[in-house]
């Protein structure tokens, strides 16, 4: 395998809140390959969002090394697109202006910007809503707009923090399929945080299970299921078997006891 795209080397994260210190992540080492989809699951307090935010460059790490493309992370940058659970669309901008935000920072001219934005909005099925304000969109549409905004600046890594967590089951499945379909064309590296075990198995090459207090690596589970993932795969006994393994790893008990 070639050099990893994302690399955690003995990473530690300690939060200082006044007199008390809290260890969010202890000695995390993990490599994510270029073009790989990795999902991260674990109980609350396992530091999964913290780990992702360190890759995004939104919070500094306290020890060890976080590398993206072989270079240490020093801050956020458009090579890493982030999709937040709360959508984080700017409500004072139209859907198109939201998607154009990153392009304008890149220095693209107005007409080129509009063209790129419309291309990605078309991809997520929001072309008709380009001039609408986010308040008029449903949750699923807001998240699709946020995905278009992240794709538009053409990042090589996608960091997704429980992106579909607030959506209904049907919308969630649709967006999972859409994510995989886009991935099959561009093969970006994806680090995807979720608390939905089915989702974790369905979209991933590997599922990373973290344990809490302090956050640390518990288990890495390979998902040896073919792509493209389909409904048949989701309903297959192999899927169920992997799903059960992940479930047990997350909830830390074996099947007999449960």
């Amino acid at each position, binding site marked *: 395998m070639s050099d990893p795209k994302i690399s955690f080397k003995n990473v530690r994260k300690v939060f200082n809140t006044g007199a008390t210190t809290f260890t969010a992540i202890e000695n995390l080492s993990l490599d994510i390959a270029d073009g790989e989809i990795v999902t991260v699951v674990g109980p609350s307090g396992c530091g999964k969002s913290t780990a992702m935010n360190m890759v995004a*460059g939104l919070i500094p790490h306290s020890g060890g090394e976080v590398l993206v493309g072989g270079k240490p992370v020093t801050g956020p940058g458009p090579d890493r697109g982030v999709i937040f659970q709360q959508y984080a669309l700017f409500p004072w901008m139209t859907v198109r202006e939201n998607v154009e935000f990153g392009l304008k920072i890149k220095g693209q001219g107005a007409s080129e910007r509009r063209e790129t934005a419309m291309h990605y909005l078309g991809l997520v099925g929001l072309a008709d809503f380009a001039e609408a304000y986010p308040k008029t969109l449903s949750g699923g549409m807001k998240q699709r707009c946020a995905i278009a905004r992240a794709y538009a600046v053409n990042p090589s890594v996608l960091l997704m923090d429980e992106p579909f967590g607030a959506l209904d089951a049907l919308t969630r499945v649709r967006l999972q399929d859409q994510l995989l379909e886009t991935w099959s064309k561009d093969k970006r590296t994806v680090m995807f945080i979720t608390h939905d075990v089915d989702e974790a198995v369905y979209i991933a090459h590997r599922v990373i299970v973290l344990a809490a207090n302090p956050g640390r690596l518990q288990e890495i589970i390979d998902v040896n299921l073919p792509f493209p993932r389909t409904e048949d795969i989701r309903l297959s006994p192999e899927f169920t078997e992997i799903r059960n393994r992940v479930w047990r790893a997350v909830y830390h008990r074996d099947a007999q006891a449960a």
Partner: protein
Amino acid sequence: MTTVTDTTAPNQVKLNRQALSTFGWGILSFAGGIGLWWLATIGGFSELPSPWAVLTRTVELAVDGQLWTDIFASLQRVLIGFAIGSVLAVPIGFLMGWYRTARVIIDPWIQFFRVIPPLAIIPLAIVTLGIDEKPKIFVIFLAAFLSAVVSTYQGVVSVDRTYINAARVLGASDGTIFRRVIIPASTPFILVGFRIGLGSAWATVVAAELIAAQSGLGFRMQQAQLYYDLPTIFVSLVMIGVLGLLMDKIVVIAEERLTHWQERV
């Protein structure tokens, strides 16, 4: 692709109908109040002038021009004081919200002056600034400034971190974040500050004119009090109320225009 039906239209109609009936009830309530007032004066239960007497006095004062001079004098003071106050409050509020150092240095002063009623500054303002327009405009400026500065900086500090993070991961610099995230995100707060500021500026001008002025609606009331001229006092009061409501309405309309993107409950 998913099809989305437009559900906003019927809601809008319902809202309009609701607004209309609220407005209708408001008119009805006022009419009822004026009716009771009228009954009380013709029944001889009160020394107050009748609505009719107040109306005729309004027409008299309007025709001889004094009403307009007074309104103009009061409005001019309010608008100058309010304009200076708001123009200064916005950058200072941003400074306080953006830089912790500015906040810890400026905030104690603002908190201190906020607890002093602007009117209490008048004696000092008259002694130091003279008896012309300056002391009045100064206290109005202070009233407007204090409300607007507090809400501006509250607006800046309460900008959702997620917006800032979303902008940063798209490559935005601090300057871009300030211009394209902080300013629009805090606009609703700033406009609330303007609304409160204009309200307290209006309250302050009238009170200031009662104490020290040679013109304005407050001054007119004060004069009328000396001559036991109740209808004129009423005219001034009603004008103060109507103009206050009008100015408030203008800010509300500006607010709706500028922050139409906000989700309202």
